[in-house]
């Protein structure tokens, strides 16, 4: 859009990061009393709260599936989470994000173990600063583990952007707004190894080779985030062990 904003200066990004550097990430598991599993996560200036309820009885009952659990995912932005107040409630963007995020998690949750049940995942964006859908998925994954939901592995998510001709990891708002492309990824990780792609969207303009480079960079990023997700889960349960 506005070409006069310089997003890369002397090989560094607008916030001083290298091209392949993530923002600071803080993850804490089990932070809510009511939910069966929960997680608070910060990714740069994104502040995310995730909660998991279930497996529980499906409400309304007619939605129940006799052979497996249904998974529901609600991505919701708080009105105060962005510069200009967001009207409360779902808009078209949140509906789409909720759909693709749910699909990513559905593919690894062992829903067949809980017929006629629902697994409800609620994520609230308390503050947004680009990449909120990826931050939400990372938080939701940890909350699912915290809730003890059986899964084939874990979902870890990060976005990659093209900014001033460079492929960069985990873009901030300015890079997202004025960059040339944005590609949110989520990978399925099992036994510490990336297995496959669970979520993939893209908008902007990229060549095939740039896209391949983006996948590579995203894979590097998610391995770092995966370690932090593990640590957050370990931390909660190890503390309880010692006491």
């Amino acid at each position: 859009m506005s070409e006069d904003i310089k997003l890369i200066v002397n090989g560094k990004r607008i916030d001083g990061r290298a091209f392949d550097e993530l923002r600071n990430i803080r993850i804490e598991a089990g932070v809510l009393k009511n939910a069966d599993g929960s997680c608070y996560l910060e990714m740069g200036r994104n502040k995310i709260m995730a909660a998991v309820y279930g497996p529980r009885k499906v409400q309304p009952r007619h939605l129940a599936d006799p052979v497996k659990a249904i998974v529901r995912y609600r991505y919701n932005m708080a009105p105060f989470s962005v510069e200009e107040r967001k009207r409360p409630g779902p808009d078209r963007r949140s509906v789409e994000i909720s759909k693709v995020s749910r699909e990513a998690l559905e593919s690894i949750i062992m829903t067949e173990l809980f017929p006629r049940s629902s697994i409800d995942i609620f994520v609230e964006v308390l503050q947004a600063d680009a990449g909120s859908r990826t931050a939400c998925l990372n938080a939701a994954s940890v909350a699912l583990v915290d809730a003890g939901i059986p899964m084939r592995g874990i979902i870890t998510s990060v976005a990659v952007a093209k900014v001033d001709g460079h492929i960069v990891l985990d873009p901030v708002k300015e890079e997202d707004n004025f960059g040339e492309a944005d590609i949110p990824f989520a990978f399925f990780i099992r036994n510490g190894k990336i297995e496959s792609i669970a979520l993939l969207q893209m908008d902007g303009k990229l060549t095939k080779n740039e896209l391949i480079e983006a996948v590579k960079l995203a894979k590097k990023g998610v391995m770092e985030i995966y370690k932090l997700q593990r640590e957050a889960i370990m931390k909660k349960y190890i503390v309880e062990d010692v006491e």
Partner: protein
Amino acid sequence: MNIITDVRKDYILSKIRDGERVDGRAFDEFRKIEIETGVIEKAEGSALVKLGNTQVIVGVKMQVGEPFPDSPDKGIIITNAELVPLASPIFEPGPPDENSIELARVVDRGIRESEAIDLSKLCIEEGKKVWIIFIDIHALDDDGNLLDASAIAAISALLNTRVPAERFGVGEDFPLPVRNLPVAVTSMIIEDKILVDPSKDEKSVSNSFITITTDVDDNIVSIQKSGSYLLKEEKFYEVLDISIEKAREIRELLKEV
């Protein structure tokens, strides 16, 4: 709510395993595409697209309105899709559900990100008046892959659009400045096989889709993985190549519009 019997599903699946499709197509073959433009006189632009038995109509209406504060000198695109109950036994009346929202947003992204419309030429008075383009996708018959049909119909309707400047008292009518031809290609992935342009029959056996939209220079302008499944990295690159190639073929049809 699936109306296709298990026997039929088994048949479709066994065919695919044998490297065949129920309608006799090759895996990388689209159904026949027919484009007819200017079908709605009251609209500024319109197109009816048939993709096999899938039918969709897109109408473009334009209005003068206020620009967004962050792009005061640019026109606005608004894309909407209605999956009306006339088009399928599983569509229900009511506000748009996640499928119609996703459909509209993926079509929108292809047009927007390929910069198919020169929005800077749609500014009437900077900061005050710009053209708003409403792209309305209206499904008529869903026999699978409404998305690609809608994307073809949308760009065809835009190519057929005249800006109604006289009616709004802002100068003479002119053709909408269209400068790119985005093409969406949806593939279904099933047991390591890639089937482009899945029909409704085929969709009953798999819920794994990916839509890749490319522009005239083979740039990728939009990707949407859809459905709960895990996509292997190598498969993704394979789909990418197929989509680029198929889009080139479809783009030839669009050049005749």
